[in-house]
């Protein structure tokens, strides 16, 4: 990575002050309660992993945060400066981009369509081209600029989508099992990139993953979700919990530091929130 790029990359250091608060969020579809009174408080500079069995409502929670699914409860984002609730920029990397592989859509089109008013069928200017190249360089994908989306490998596509989610740099980054169908090397590369992001930028990350070994290695905090929040804590605490072990089996915690944390708990974030602001 060039020095210039590095500077841009670091433009906002994690401040630890801004936060996203989810209060009493519930999603009901028909007679089924999919999410039941979820309370969660997420600080910037943290990678929060969301784990839970299939159908636990993990993807639904992300979609509710995005506003794609109607829900009750409150979502607020507070920035470090004003402390007032503002509309955060949310970056989103979908689970699996179900798109038509035959579509004549290149990576550059994708960036221009999200970042420019000028319709992409009229062509894309040099400035946008440079901007997109620059953004792709972050995820080591600048060579993919003119490739069709349908011609990318799974890992390449996920890196492109990550670069897209980071342009503009979001306050909250939502990753919905971003690496399903990605090979081993691509997986490491992706997690290293995400892991670097949270230390070098002022953003919070929520990650859904089934790869619990990687979660244990990279996450700062793990949320065990099954309709409601069952447990929140460091990977060390959560993966030693009997209920988690019952659901997932034993996870190897080799190399994971037993980071100290008071007690894993069903957290009432209201109090802590008051203290921090």
């Amino acid at each position, binding site marked *: 990575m060039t020095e210039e790029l590095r500077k841009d990359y670091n433009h906002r250091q994690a401040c630890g002050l801004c936060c996203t608060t989810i209060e009493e969020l519930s999603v009901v579809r028909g007679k089924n309660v999919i999410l039941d009174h979820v309370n969660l408080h997420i600080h910037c500079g943290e990678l929060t992993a969301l784990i839970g069995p299939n159908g636990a409502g993990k993807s639904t929670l992300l979609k509710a945060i995005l*506003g*794609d699914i109607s829900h009750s409860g409150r979502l607020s984002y507070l920035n470090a400066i004003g402390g007032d609730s503002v509309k955060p920029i*949310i970056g*989103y990397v979908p689970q699996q981009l179900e798109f038509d592989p035959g579509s004549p*859509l*290149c990576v550059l089109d994708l960036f*221009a369509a999200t970042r420019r008013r000028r319709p*992409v*069928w009229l062509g894309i200017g040099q400035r946008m081209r440079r901007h997109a190249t620059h953004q792709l360089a972050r995820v080591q994908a600048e060579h993919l600029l003119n490739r069709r989306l349908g011609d990318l490998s799974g890992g390449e596509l996920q890196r492109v989508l990550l670069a897209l989610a980071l342009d503009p740099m979001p306050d909250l980054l939502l990753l919905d099992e971003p690496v399903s169908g990605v090979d081993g090397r691509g997986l490491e590369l992706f997690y290293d990139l995400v892991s670097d992001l949270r230390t070098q930028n002022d953003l919070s990350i929520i990650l859904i993953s089934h790869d619990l070994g990687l979660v244990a290695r990279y996450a700062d905090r793990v949320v065990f979700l099954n309709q409601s929040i069952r447990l929140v804590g460091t990977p060390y605490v959560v993966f030693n919990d009997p209920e988690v072990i019952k659901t997932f089996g034993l996870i190897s915690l080799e190399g994971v530091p037993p980071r100290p944390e008071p007690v894993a708990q069903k957290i009432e974030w209201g109090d802590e929130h008051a203290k921090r602001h």
Partner: protein
Amino acid sequence: MQSAINVLQWLLPFEWMQYHFMQNALLGVIMVCPLFGLMGTMVVNNRMAFFSDAIGHSALTGIALGVLLGMRDPLGAMIAFSILLALGISLIKQSARSSPDTIIGVFSSTAVALGIVILSRGGGFARYANFLIGDLLSIQQREILLLLGLLAAVLIFWLFFFNGLLMVSINSTLARSRGARVQALEIAFGLLLALVVTVCIQWVGILIISSLLVLPAAAARNLASNMRQYHVWSLLIALVSGVSGLILSYYWDTASGATIVLCAAVVFFLTVLGRSLQRG
């Protein structure tokens, strides 16, 4: 409009260009084909071929309603009904659990059956058969102006909303995360498509109207590697098949709409062949 005709006569100094109906038909083709080439790119991207087919078929009910209301030109009733149907399909699609195919199928079959029942009362359906095939040669000058207005409306929509529409066609949740108004865009596009299809039915014909939407864009997909090329090819293929189809229909004495679709189909199969040769 006369100057446009003069330019065309100079460009195409053929015997058939002396006839007024051919002059008008050519102008009509030059409006309709870009319209369909443009809309087609998104119809194919959004997999809305079946939707446009359903809108086309439902025109029968629109005509029937027009007849029941005693209208001489049923276009108003056709437009009103197709817009209602497009709105109904979009709204139900967003809340229902059945697949969009099923919902569209249910609506479309009901509308077609209703239209046929009303129109065939007393055995007079044959009178309306020209809507099935379409008659481009009957196009009038004021209708060409109407088409020009429609083309302008689609172009304006394409200028301001294409990027959002493209995001929605890729992934709606992703589009939402970028601030696109997903539902509004989907509904607006559905309504515009319904309007374009319904207005053009009298010239292109119910049976083949969705082919004219799909073929140029589908052929363009085989040639393009980005959105700009996609549009350029789709417009070009639509226009070339339109003009050559119209000329061929004059010499062969065939229905012009179907001849145009056949030309577009030939282009499509050529692109498929070219692509497989290139890969093979």
